[in-house]
């Protein structure tokens, strides 16, 4: 695995993504979701909302890193709020 040049932050990042996906799978098996419409312009499933939340978070990080001098942690905190909002009301 050394050839993959792992670092602790990236390992934690991918570990978190894997844990979220595993958690979502278990959640789906226990309680299958029903497509619904929230503030997003399309009706979405739980998995759709997770994808939109994660993709939006990635762009939010790029926006903060590319256009401001803010710490990347601010982008991460904003992303958590965004992800929560999309999952809950999206």
């Amino acid at each position, binding site marked *: 695995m050394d*050839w*993959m*040049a*792992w*670092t602790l*932050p*990236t390992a934690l*990042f*991918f570990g978190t993504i894997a844990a979220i996906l595993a958690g979502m799978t278990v959640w789906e*098996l226990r309680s*299958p979701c*029903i497509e619904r419409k929230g503030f997003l312009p*399309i009706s979405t499933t739980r998995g759709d909302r997770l*994808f939109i939340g994660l*993709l939006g978070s*990635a*762009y939010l*990080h*790029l926006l903060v*890193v*590319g*256009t401001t001098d803010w710490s*990347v942690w601010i982008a991460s905190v904003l992303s958590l709020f965004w992800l929560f909002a999309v999952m809950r009301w999206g």
Partner: protein
Amino acid sequence: MKVYNNKAWWLVLPVFLLVAFSAIVPMMTVVNYSVQDIFDHSTRYFVGVDWYKQVLQDTRLHDSLLRQFIYSGCVLLIEIPLGIAIALTMPTKGRWASLVLIVMAIPLLIPWNVVGTIWQIFGRADIGLMGWALNSLGISYNYASNTSDAWVTVLIMDVWHWTSLVALLCYSGLRAIPDVYYQAARIDRASAWAVFRHIQLPKLKSVLLIAVMLRFMDSFMIYTEPFVLTGGGPGNATTFLSQTLTQMAIGQFDLGPAAAFSLVYFLIILLVSWLFYTAMTHNDKTR
């Protein structure tokens, strides 16, 4: 909603493992590279988001990105209407239908580097038919030194190579329209334009979305053809994103910035593909 059986998911496992080794593991490696300054196999330093900051503020990459969007936009604006027009004029039955289908498929079978070489020679003023003919007609044409000529040549080359794909997709879409629609149009004495506007175009919507998505993704990742034809020149006039990225990763061996930029590149393609996918599935749901 009751789920009866989830065992079929195990059938997806071989594909998942294949994708993991061919795409997920390499992408994870790229993410790891993008946060480090790598000198050699054992000497590397964590730099956080520094490479992202650098590439997002790099004007060379901004220019490449702008060129790439203009290029993909031009490709779509030319190839989609032209593909539809060709599909509408293609014969539907008889031996001509088969012949035209074969002729249309030929450009799609030619490898990218060969297409680049064909057009590189075709456009040359000394030995190329197109370059020689244009210059003989008094039109100053030189794709190696004139930016506009280089752009026009790269675009025409792409149109020549890929319009067939759009045409063949549209042709199959047109053939799938039941004849009763045309019968109804004839009863109403609908004009050819009305038939196209109210029958053919709406029925082609799904096929066109696939065509637009394929052509966008492919043109957005274009590398070989312009590289062989113009080498990215004159200057950087036809240097598109993938060529800039290759120069950065292999030419300069700046693995960290190249990894960071390839992830930005990936996110752009992921977003656009998702938008098209959503539009397509939404279209299916509303039928």
